[in-house]
Structures are given as C-alpha cells and as structure tokens.
C-alpha cells in the first residue's frame, strides 16, 4: 500500500508550516534519508527527509503552499512494484480535520511566512485602543514581525541601539524574531554571542552604562536566571547606588513562560520575579500592536526594561497601526472589553484564557470587563481600581505560580484601594503549584484554563 508522507511538526509550538520547495519530482526514486522537501516553519526553513524508500508517487501539496497543518498528507510514496494505480489505496490521513485547514497555494513563494489563516486577535476585544488615532490604517502582522519591525525602526532611528544574544544574527533568531536585522544593520549592530548569558548580560549592562542602548535577547527567560545578578544587582540598582549619576537604558527581551511540551526547566513564568524589583520596568504584552508599540517604548526608555514575550503568541497575528512612529507608553493598562459584572485582569498569554472566559460568561449573562495589564511594573493600579469600583468583583489570571505572584499583588492593591467596593474576595487563577510537567495532559492541567476563569468569575459573582 502506498505510504503517506505527512507534514511534520518541526518545533514544540509548530501547528502549521509552508511547503517551500519540493526537491524530488513525481516518479523519482527515493531512498531513506533523502531530502525530499523544504518546509518553512515560523522559525526556520527545515529539510524533510524521507524515512521510507520507493518512488515519489504523487505530490499532494504543491510547493509554495502556505499554512499546511501538521499531519496533513503532503505526498505519497510508492513501494517497489506499486504503480500510480495504487495511489487510491493510500490510507486516510491521520487528522482529516487538520488537513482541511490548509490554505490554498500562495501566489508567490514567500520568503517570510505570512500566515493569513493564523490565529488572529480574538473577536472578543471590543474596546478601541485609545493610543491609536481613529481611522488609522491597520496592517495584519504576526507578533514576531511586529517585534522585528519595532527593533528595526528603533535601530534606524538611533545608532546607539544594537541587538545582542544567542543566534540573533546569522541564524536570524532562534525564534526568527530578529529576522533580517543582520542584513539591514550588519554584524556590528546585530551581534551573535556565545552561550554565556551571565557574561553577555553583564557586557550589555556595561555598554549601557556608557550610554549605548542594547537590546539583549535571551533565547528564553529561563536562561536569564544565569544572568539575573547582572539584571538586578547591576542594571536595576546602579542608578540609585550612584545617586542618579549613572543608569542604564537597556532592554532584556525574549520568550517567557510556558511554550509547549518543553517541561519544567523551559516553562517558567518570571513575571513576578522581575516585577518585584524597583529600578526595573516590566512589560508583558498580548496583542501584536502592543508588542510593537511597547517594544519601541522600551528601547527608548532610559531605564532597564524587562520585556516578557510569549513563544506561543509569536505566530499569532493582529492589527498593527500603520504609523511612522507607533509608541505605546509603558505603565498603562488597557480595557479590552467592557463589562459591569466582574473585572478580569491578566496580561500576556493569560489574556487568551481571560478573553475566552469572557465570551463564555457572556452566554450566561455575566458581562466581564477584561483588563490587559500590558505593563507589570509600574502597575496601572488606577485602571484596575476604577474597574473594580464599577464591578465590585475581580479575578486575576496568570500562567505563573500563585504564591507571591502578580495576581497576589493585584489582589492586595484592590484590597488597599477598593476594599469597600468589593462584593466578594478577589479570586486568583494561576499556574498550578508544581514544576511544569512534560506529559501533554499534565501540562494542560498545570496551566490555567478558560474554564477555571469562568468558574472563578462565577464564584465571585455568587453564581
């Protein structure tokens, strides 16, 4: 029976990819280990090797096709003795429903992925962003592209801005966030470092003390624990310790929190760690527009800024204002959905659960007001408190652990500033109090869910 070649998953978070190129033609003989095709993921271009031998019977997905879902059959291989007539006997694809999501072939072979059908900003966002002038033209971008554009724009604007980190230059970014920067700005300003987080974080801080403006990428914030002494003791405290003489304008950025199936050491959320420290600003956006506008603000900020990204969100698209200089001020939360019954406060990927839950709650007649905190330090207490004064109930949602978490901080601020307005104790939805497990089912249990947010919201509404 002919063998089906399926679209492979080439990274922990890959859901779809572009079939960039077929290296074998129909009818060609294939040996195990032959490279038969090139697949572009959102991170890199990868080669697909044949694991079976035979003849390439039929190419099911032509080259240039974008957004081919993982596990979609892309070709069939005929075993010895089989002919084209046997093609009909090929087994049904493993996941029919995924295959159906495949988009039609792209008109041109795209260099960068342009996933039109990628998950977009949830429909549940109802409130316009006050930072965007009415009538502004919007472009649809992935968060990854928004980040890249933010860095490129700031590097064009200021020669003191440079990017350093592991694989940021020649590899084009471990998660492709710095794609194209080396080509535009050269090796002097886009700097590949050895795998030495502690060392290059310190070098970045030292350079920043002289007035340069480094953007230091950590491949993930898990690895920044190696560098946390330089971030806190050197970057955050020097301005104070020098009596205001010497500070540093530096951005530490990279993916934070759980990706997918990478287990305990690669899945920690550091929101509360960094937001504990005076001298640091901590930004953790959710929407593509916020990623762009806030990264630009972070690079311009004269203080050290921790810019927490989320790997799961990199491929998500959203509408980004087409403005010459779109900068969102650090320290302002945004009400993304208004409601009067309960306030749900979250940030970064926590917003995914918050917004889904708000949709669910609406079906039950509970109108949730959803606040995207966007910046964790300085925290926009005013927006939170004003909302809670209106709703009388609050739920916080975070992927990190509950103890000493950001949700605990929000709850304390609500208690301090709006105690008399509360109709119920503040509820926290958080990551479970365990290291992140590897098994898919356990991982899902360890993370918060929309259902838990719904449950918490109903509980504070006594429903």
């Amino acid at each position, binding site marked *: 029976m002919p063998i089906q070649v399926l679209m492979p998953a080439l990274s922990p978070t890959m859901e779809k990819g572009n079939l960039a190129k077929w290296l074998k033609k129909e009818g060609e003989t294939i040996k195990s280990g032959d490279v038969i095709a090139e697949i572009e993921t959102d991170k890199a271009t990868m080669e697909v090797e044949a694991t079976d031998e035979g003849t390439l019977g039929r190419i099911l997905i032509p080259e240039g096709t974008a957004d081919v879902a993982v596990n979609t059959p892309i070709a069939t291989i005929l075993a010895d003795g089989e002919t084209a007539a046997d093609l009909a006997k090929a087994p049904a694809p493993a996941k029919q429903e995924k295959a159906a999501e495949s988009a039609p072939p792209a008109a041109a072979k795209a260099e960068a992925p342009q996933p039109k059908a990628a998950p977009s900003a949830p429909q549940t966002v109802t409130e316009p962003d006050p930072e965007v002038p009415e009538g502004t033209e919007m472009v649809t971008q992935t968060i990854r592209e928004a980040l890249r554009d933010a860095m490129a724009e700031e590097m064009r604007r200021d020669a003191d801005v*440079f990017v350093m980190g592991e694989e940021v230059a020649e590899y084009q970014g471990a998660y492709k966030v710095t794609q194209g920067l080396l080509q535009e700005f050269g090796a*002097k300003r886009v700097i590949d*470092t*050895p795998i*030495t987080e*502690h*060392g*290059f*974080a*310190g*070098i*970045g*801080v*030292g*350079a*920043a*003390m*002289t*007035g*340069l403006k480094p953007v230091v990428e950590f491949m993930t914030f898990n690895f920044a624990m190696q560098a946390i*002494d*330089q971030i806190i*003791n*050197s970057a955050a405290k*020097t*301005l*104070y*310790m*020098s*009596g*205001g*003489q*010497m*500070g540093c304008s530096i951005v530490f950025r990279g993916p934070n929190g759980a990706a997918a199936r990478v287990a305990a050491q690669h899945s920690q959320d550091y929101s509360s760690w960094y937001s504990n420290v*005076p*001298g640091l*600003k901590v930004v953790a956006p959710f929407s593509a527009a916020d990623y762009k506008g806030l990264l630009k603000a972070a690079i311009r900020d*004269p*203080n050290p800024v921790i810019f927490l990204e989320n790997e799961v969100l990199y491929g998500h698209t959203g509408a980004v204002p087409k403005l010459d200089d779109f900068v969102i001020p650090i320290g302002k939360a945004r009400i993304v959905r208004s409601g009067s019954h309960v306030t749900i406060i979250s940030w970064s990927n926590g917003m995914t659960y918050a917004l889904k839950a708000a949709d669910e709650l609406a079906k039950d007649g509970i109108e949730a007001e959803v606040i995207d905190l966007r910046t964790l330090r300085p925290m926009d207490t005013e927006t939170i408190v004003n909302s809670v004064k209106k709703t009388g109930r609050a739920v916080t949602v975070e992927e990190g652990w509950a103890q000493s978490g950001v949700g605990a901080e929000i709850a304390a601020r609500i208690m301090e500033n709006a105690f008399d307005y509360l109709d119920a104790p503040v509820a926290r939805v958080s990551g479970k109090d365990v290291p992140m497990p590897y098994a898919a089912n356990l991982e899902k249990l360890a993370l918060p869910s929309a259902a838990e947010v719904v449950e918490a919201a109903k509980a504070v509404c006594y429903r």
Partner: protein
Amino acid sequence: MAAPKKAAASTPQDKTNGGSPPEFTREQELKALRDMLLIRRFEEKAGQLYGMGAIGGFCHLYIGQEAVVVGMQMALKLGDQVITGYRDHGHMLATGMEAKGVMAELTGRRGGYSKGKGGSMHMFSKEKHFYGGHGIVGAQVSLGTGLAFANHYRGNDNVSVTYFGDGAANQGQVYESFNMAELWKLPVIYVIENNRYAMGTSVSRASAQQDFSKRGASFNIPGKQVDGMDVRAVKAAGDEAAAWCRAGKGPYILEMQTYRYRGHSMSDPAKYRTREEVEKVRHDQDPIEQVRNRLLAAKVSEQDLKAIDAEVRDIVNASADFAQHDPEPDAAELWTDIYR
C-alpha cells in the same frame, strides 16, 4: 595563643623580565608618591572613622596595594574607563575623584558621590570615567568588558581597565567575559590584583592555577605577572597592555602581585596569616617607602617630602571634617534615582 604556623608564602616579585623596571623621572616619582600617600592616609582615616562609628557597614581598605592603581593610572589617557569591585577607594582617588566626596559617601552624607545612597562599595563618577564600585564579586568583570565593548562599538581608542581580585578570578563570568573579549578583540586590560587572600582563603587553598597571568591562556589572551608593589613596574606593564589594546589586538591580563596590610574588611581579625608575614611585606616591599627611598637617594630633601605629607594630610583631614559635618541626605532622597 600563638597563631597557627603558616607556610612561608612567596613574596611578590617581578617576573616580567628579571630586570628592574624603567626608571621614573623625578616628576613621576613625586606624583606617584603623592598619589599613593593620599590613598594610604585616606584609608587610615577611613579606618579611624569606622572605629568611631562614623562609617557603617562594610569597609574594605586598600592599604598596601596603592602602587597598583597609581601605576596603572599613569598609563592611561583621558576617556579610559576604570571599574573595580568593592575595595575601591584607592581606585576612585587615583582617577581623580575628590577625597571629600568619597569620604562623605563613606559616612553616608548628602555630599557623597552617590548622595549617601551607595556607600563604600558603590560609588561612580561619570566625569572621571569611574564606573564603580561593585559589591558582587566578579560582576565588574563582565561590566568592564561591556565598557570595552562600547569603546569598540564607538570606534574610539580608549581602553577599559577592569580590576578584580584573586578571589573573583575564580568566578564563572570572568571566563565568559574573557572569551567574548578575545573573540571580539575588545580593548580591556584585566588587572588581577592578587593580594594573596580572598577574604580569609589563601590563593593556594582556592585556586588550581595560581599563576593568574595564565588565566586567559585558553582564550589566547596574553598575560603578565607584575611586581605590584613597585609602581614603576606597574606603569611599564600598564603601558604595554594599553598599547596592545589600543592597537586593536584585544584584551590583556596583568596579574599584579600585591598585598593588603589590613583585614579583608574592618571586621576581619585576619587570623589566617601571621603578623610576621604582614610585617615582612611592609618592611621589605612597601610601595610608598620604595619611592620615598629612591627620592631621598636622588637627593630630594626631607623637607620637600614633608611638604607632600602635609598637603596630603590636609586633604584627608578636610575630607574627614566635611564627611562628619555634612548633613545626612534629605528623607525625600529615599524615593529619588530609582527611575529616570
């Protein structure tokens, strides 16, 4: 009550080329004497003030090591940066920071270099290109490499002089920094001040490779052992290292063989070494006495040397006076300089 017997430690000596270092001119000798004396008298005064309770917390004195910073500073030019760890008062005075501001910082007063918010271990001067003053052992090595990175990025020919001790030399980030400095040919002179004790642990008890000039060998960074008690040897080595860096050849390591006369900090009874060991170095190798003796041999009058003593004492006394009478920072300063 006899102190435990210590193995006779070798005394610091110049292993560079066996011969004596190049002679100083009379002006250089006088300047070196004056600058080293200033540091010594300043530190002695700081020790006194600490004993009186005017200085709190940690206070690490530089007495004995003066030739290192003074000799190195003589090899530098305007714009070269200096950064060090927590035994930093000498470095500050050597870069030209005012004794008054340093002493007032030690006493936690508003006229201190950090408005009283940094203390002994955390002082900075943008004007004098002094980048601290760092309390975490070894952190200044990556930071100093970053200063060199900035010079390289800007394309100037300044060098970063990054000081650290024999103890810090065992920290991991030192080697991360060595690797990147050589990889990117950054203009940084790593000055390892080997005063033979990391707090109470002698070099032989803590370091597998006790020749610190070789610590960059696996990164191809050249290194040299220098008699850190002879200011002329320090300057000559500094000149050589600076020329190497300015020529774009990358980093350079200087192991300064030196000695601290006092304890690690004011609270260190220094039971890990004998009084005789300290006395022997003081007697045989004191960096200030070496210069003084050469000057006297060169027929500089006692009178002239006394004038230098007097000038230095005046500066130090004035700084102590200021540091004890300057008001404490305003309470509102608690909340300033966190962000800009």
